[in-house]
């Protein structure tokens, strides 16, 4: 019996999350095969800029080489395995090993071998000893890499998800930049918990985040009446299965207006947003309450509109990226980035950061409550009995497909659905079935 059974009672074994044997297998079958996010290109704008990250479970250097190309290099010397970079970030044209001094260009090519003739003779072929390189592609500012030489190009991998990434990351003339390096934290939970939550779980919000509703962090009708008619209190939403386990949820504010409303962004940016997007993408971005999604396996994005984070009447948007690095089945390292429009004023960036750190930042109120659930789920699986159980992921199986939209992918016309978690689990099961 498969761990994930795609039947009319879509079942997922709890071993998928917390069985160490399953976790060991997925490190090979999922993390050695998939495209994974490693950095935002604004982190390494100039030749020589580098950051150290983890690709799957392996430490890597993400560096812009002297020709301007992004390289993702395994952070271990080809000679005796010593790490070449120890810092979180820096700038260097070369990496020199601290043990015997082998020196590499920031393309990964071996350039210098200490006492080369003395130790290796005259015929040593340096070309055979470049640093191990991952395949790398950048799309919409997001740098992805994979250890899989046979992986499809990233555009083929992402498919319809590209349309939504364009709407989020491609809507500004000057694009987005990181406020700074990622916050890094560790939590005793499964890497899948936040991943599947952000794939499109709008079901948990009214319960897990009820205190945020009470505190006015979700827009109330009186926050919106200045911008248009507010015929209902209900926030309409949809979820999309883009294939290959990539999914997104899009929720709108209950406001009706004659022109696009990019609430939370500086109004001087509004015309270029409309100009840069197709009509269906404008419809997605206008009146946006929140959108979030997951790029399989372990990368998620969130664009959020929040009110009341900086006193009454305040409203702002922010984009967050999160990467979930598996440490063990029940232990996860999270990386958290905050993105802001490059063209926004410093005052706006600071305001966006306040909204972000107080809500969806690593120390934000939403994360305090989500973390409680994610950690709690892991604690509930310390024993044996829970592992024998299975989830029936049938939420939203009856929900209708959305009609007449420009939006690509399998779009369900419902805000509270398990449509996206099923899509993620299907991809996971496909990869786990493949013999290595």
């Amino acid at each position, binding site marked *: 019996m498969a761990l994930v059974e795609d039947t009319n009672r879509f079942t997922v074994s709890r071993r998928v999350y917390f069985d160490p044997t399953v976790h060991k297998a997925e490190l090979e079958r999922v993390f050695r095969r998939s495209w994974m996010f490693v950095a935002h290109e604004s982190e*390494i*704008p*100039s030749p020589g*800029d580098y950051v150290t990250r983890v690709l799957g479970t392996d430490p890597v250097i993400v560096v812009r080489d002297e020709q301007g190309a992004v390289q993702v290099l395994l952070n271990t010397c080809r000679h005796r395995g010593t790490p070449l*970079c*120890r*810092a*979180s*970030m*820096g*700038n*260097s044209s070369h990496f020199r090993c601290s043990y015997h001094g082998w020196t590499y260009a920031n393309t990964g090519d071996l350039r210098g071998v200490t006492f080369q003739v003395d130790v290796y003779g005259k015929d040593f072929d340096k070309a055979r000893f470049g640093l191990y390189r991952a395949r790398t592609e950048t799309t919409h500012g997001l740098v992805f890499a994979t250890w899989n030489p046979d992986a499809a190009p990233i555009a083929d991998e992402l498919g319809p998800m590209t349309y939504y990434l364009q709407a989020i990351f491609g809507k500004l003339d000057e694009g987005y930049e*990181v*406020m*700074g*390096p*990622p*916050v*890094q*934290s*560790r939590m*005793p939970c499964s890497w899948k918990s936040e991943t599947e939550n952000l794939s499109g779980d709008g079901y948990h919000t009214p*319960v*897990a985040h*009820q*205190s945020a509703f*009470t*505190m006015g962090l979700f827009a109330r009708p009186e926050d919106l009446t200045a911008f248009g008619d507010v015929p209902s209190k209900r926030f309409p939403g949809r979820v999309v299965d883009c294939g290959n386990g990539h999914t997104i949820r899009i929720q709108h504010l209950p406001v009706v207006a004659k022109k696009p409303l990019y609430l939370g962004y500086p109004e001087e940016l509004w015309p270029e947003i409309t100009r840069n997007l197709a009509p269906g993408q404008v419809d997605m971005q206008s009146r946006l309450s929140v959108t979030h999604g997951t790029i399989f396996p372990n990368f998620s994005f969130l664009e959020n509109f929040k009110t009341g*984070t*900086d*006193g009454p009447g305040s409203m702002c948007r922010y984009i967050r990226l999160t990467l979930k690095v598996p440490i063990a089945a029940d232990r996860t*390292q999270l990386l958290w980035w*905050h993105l802001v429009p490059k063209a926004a004023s*410093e005052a706006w960036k*600071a305001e966006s*950061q*306040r909204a972000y*750190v*107080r809500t969806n*930042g*690593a*120390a*934000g*109120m939403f*994360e*305090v*409550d989500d*973390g*409680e*659930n994610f*950690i709690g789920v892991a*604690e509930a699986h310390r024993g044996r009995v829970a592992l024998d159980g299975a989830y029936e992921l049938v939420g939203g199986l009856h929900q209708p497909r959305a009609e007449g939209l420009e939006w690509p992918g399998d779009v369900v016309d419902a805000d509270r659905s398990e449509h996206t978690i099923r899509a993620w689990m299907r991809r996971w099961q496909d990869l786990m079935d493949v013999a290595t």
Partner: protein
Amino acid sequence: MTAPARAVRWTAPTQSGPPADGVTHAEVAAFLAYEAEALDSHQFERWAELVDDAFTYRVPVPVLQDNVSSPGYDTGSLLLDEDKTSIIQLWFGRFGEDIYEFAWGDHPPVRMRHFVTNVRVRTSDTPDMLDVRANVRVHMVRQTMQKGELVAERFDRVRRTPDGLRLLSRFAVLDDLVLEAPQLRVML
């Protein structure tokens, strides 16, 4: 090796004045101990009385740079950015009667214990304003089992008023690069 050019938005306040006298040191150390007591025992109103209305609290994102003169944090981005109003409304407000039941991550609250040491008090150019550095360790226990701690250096500004000392700002620099405490929403 050099670091990439990065935005400089927030840095620890420069505290270069001459050391204050011993009595002032003792007075400030006691003030910080009572402030920590108010936090650890959920005496939110008492804490608010010790804090100036213009209070700001910032914790920068820790980062490891290959540069001996690096401050150990990013000068462009923050983990926490709060003021007195946001702390009272969005932090303490979670313990209010109508909210606490659904403030899941604070219910039951993470038990926190502040250890404040190495208090250094310097006088400043502004009369009645003291520059205070201190080391802080916050030990935490969530529910029955999960433990953790955060260690930081504080850069505080403390104002002397007719009603006593008041905390005007706090900038806390974390030692940890990978944060592993049960809760990161913490007044260090």
